[in-house]
Every structure is written in C-alpha cells, then in structure tokens.
C-alpha cells in the first residue's frame, strides 16, 4: 500500500523531487531544543500555505505524541503555521502535497533525550507517525521522508541540536523515520473500522472493531475498559 522514499539534498530540492514523484504526503523529522532542560512539549510546523489536511494531520500527531509521553502541545493547538517567524516554513511550503515538520520531543531535555536514544522510544515515535499517515492517507501511495538537517548539500556536517547525554538530533530523527518506513511498508490493508487496541510495548495483546458511535469508557479504579454491546 505504501512506498516510502527518503529525499536528500537541500530542502527546496527535496520538496521539488517529491512533487515530481507525486508523493501523497511529506514528512520532515526534527527534534526541538531549548536552553531550558525542562522544556517539554510537542509541536508540528506546517507551511504558511498549509492545507486543512496538513493542519489536522499535524494537530493529530502532536496531540498523540503529547498524550503518549505525558507532555503538552504548543503553538496553535499543536501546530505552528508558517513556523516561528518563518523558521521551518521553507522546509515544507514548496510541496504540492500535505506536509508537516515534526518536533515531538526536546533534545535538550534529559528525559526526552533518553527516550529519543532508546529503541523503544524510537519505535513509539515511529508508530505514532505511521498511524497518523494511515489515518490521513488511507489510500496508500508514496510517502516522502526528509531527515531534518542531515544530507543538505549546503551544509553537509549539520546534524542539528545535540542530544543531552550524547548523540545528535538528525541521526536519531533518521532512526525514527527508518522504523516508520518499515512499519508503513509492512501495511497490507487498512481497516476502515474503528478499532480498540491493547498493547504492551511493541506487542499487540488485543484488538477489536467497535461501533463508530460506541461510548468506550476506561475506569481506572476497576481496571475496566467498557465497550457497549
């Protein structure tokens, strides 16, 4: 269903190639950074000319990341349209297809950096991204991936921010994208049903389809997820 292609070169060239290849979605992966070691939120940058699909997709992804890792979303309900004072706008504005630039966690936050460095953290981030793509682009197609900072002809040594405790933003963004690519290329079909899943780490313990209108209630005191018949 999905084919994933990594685009390299300067940002405008990457977007132009993705346009020429008729990609259905474009994702550039970064991590955020601050001089504060406690900064903790997820945000997605969309182009100043972003479509409604890009904005909704970006918000869905940012909120999913924030819920999963127990952080917040920033910007306008999770997105910065046109970036911060234009920063990041050019990274996605030249695409013909929906495009988002991800900053899910802070490389400067020691707890976030541990997540980013870990296999499980990378898998969790990749799964949220892959699920966002399946949700917003259920018909499949070519997905364009771009690793932020890395592979630019203009500054080939750029790796973005340093991860607190070791490593670089770009190298770990690439690891997440590679995992997401493997997940997407393994998708055979996409169920249009609403599903409920129970997962333990990477293991799917339970999955069932539920009625679209069903009010599913989690009772933490009883440890019960109640699905109406």
């Amino acid at each position, binding site marked *: 269903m999905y084919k994933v292609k990594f685009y390299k070169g300067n*940002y405008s060239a990457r977007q132009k190639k993705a346009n020429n290849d008729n990609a259905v979605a474009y994702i550039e992966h*970064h*991590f*955020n*950074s*601050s*001089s*504060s070691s*406690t*900064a*903790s*939120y997820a*945000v997605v*940058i969309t182009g100043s000319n972003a479509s409604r699909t890009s904005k909704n997709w970006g918000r869905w992804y940012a909120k999913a990341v924030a819920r999963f890792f127990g952080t917040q979303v920033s910007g306008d309900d999770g997105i*910065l349209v046109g*970036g*911060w*004072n*234009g*920063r*990041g*706008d*050019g*990274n996605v504005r030249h695409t013909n297809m929906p495009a988002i630039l991800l*900053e899910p966690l*802070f*490389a*400067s936050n020691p707890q976030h950096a541990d997540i980013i460095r870990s296999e499980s953290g990378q898998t969790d981030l990749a799964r949220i991204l892959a699920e966002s793509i399946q949700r917003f682009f259920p018909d499949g197609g070519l997905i364009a991936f771009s690793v932020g*900072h890395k592979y*630019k002809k*203009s*500054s080939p040594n*750029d*790796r*973005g*921010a*340093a991860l607190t405790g070791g490593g670089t*933003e770009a190298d770990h963004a690439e690891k997440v994208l590679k995992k997401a690519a493997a997940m997407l290329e393994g998708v055979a079909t996409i169920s249009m049903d609403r599903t409920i899943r129970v997962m333990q780490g990477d293991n799917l313990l339970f999955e069932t389809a539920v009625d679209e209108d069903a009010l599913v209630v989690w009772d933490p005191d009883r440890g019960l997820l109640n699905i109406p018949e």
Partner: protein
Amino acid sequence: MLRSSNARSRCYPISRLLVFIILPIIIAGLLAAAGCSQPVTSDRDPPGGQFHVYFNNDSLTEGHTVCDAVFPVLRSSPEPIDEPSAALEALFPGPTPEERAQGYRSFFSARTAGLLKHLKIESGTAYLDLRDKRTELAGITSSCGSAEFFSQIQHTLGEYPEIQRIIFAIEGNPGVFYDWLELECDQSNDDCDPAPFALPSD
C-alpha cells in the same frame, strides 16, 4: 533607558569585554590593581554607563518555557555605553553564575563570548556579522532555540532606536547564517546580499 553619557575615563587598561561581565566590586579590584585612582565601591552606582541585556527566565513565566519571552538584566560599565556592539559583547557571554542561579538562561555562554565579529548600522539596518560558532550554538536551529536566540538579540538591540531591523551573517556570509537557521533568503534579509558585510579592508 539607563545608558549613560558620562565622560570617558582613560584609565582602564583591561579589555572592554571583561569590564562588561564582571561585577562592580570586581571592577574596583581590577582598577586598583591597574593603578587607577578613581575609587569604585559596591555600595555606590558604578561610574559610566548602564544598559540591559536580555535572557530567558522560566521563573518569570510561572515555570513555563516560553521560548521568545526574555527579561532584562543590568550591565554596568565604567565607560559610557552608546554602542550597540558593546551590548552584544555583554550579551554573548551569557548570564553570570549569579543570574543563572536566579533562573536566567541562554544558549550564550563563555564558549560564545567572542561571537560578535562586526556590527554595522546603516539606514536603520544592523548588519550583525557573527563568528562561526555553529557547533556551540547547535541548539538554536530548532523552533524554540531560534526563538530564544532571536528574541535575546532583538530585545537587546531594541534599546537602540537607530536600529529598526537586523540582518545576520556568519563570517560575512548571510547565506550561511540563514541556511543554517533554515530560513530562506528573501526581501526580509535583502536576499542574503553579502555586500553590506564587507569589512573596510576587504
């Protein structure tokens, strides 16, 4: 503004940069060591100019990280301060240990103290040429980091009314700076024209 137009003293042999980042009590000690007769004590205002540099401080934003929210801290100099470049030279070493203890923070630190290469102001535009410290400042290439960087510089230079906009360069090349910060060359930065950054000797 707290900038002073006090007369310039001729008795300050230490470098201007050091004068900006040390406390008045230390200045007094250095002056004494240098043989200056002008007394400077910690219980009186230092002679010369005072001005502000701006840093982030989460304790002033209710503990939240607000990337572009910056707050002034006072810098004093025994010399009159009317040059924006002096303010930048005081900004780029970052907060003092005492200020950091109060919550002030910045990507600027002792490692970036020499960041300013040259500043030229022409027709309301500040052409700010930086030395290549991209490794030390790698964190500013994110959305939050760049907001902190730009806000600290814009507010510090914002105290000088002759400056209406700022164009940046690294080692005389604005294209390198804006490419690094993932900003496009357009009208807002004069399409990254390097000509205004040429030094007189170039």
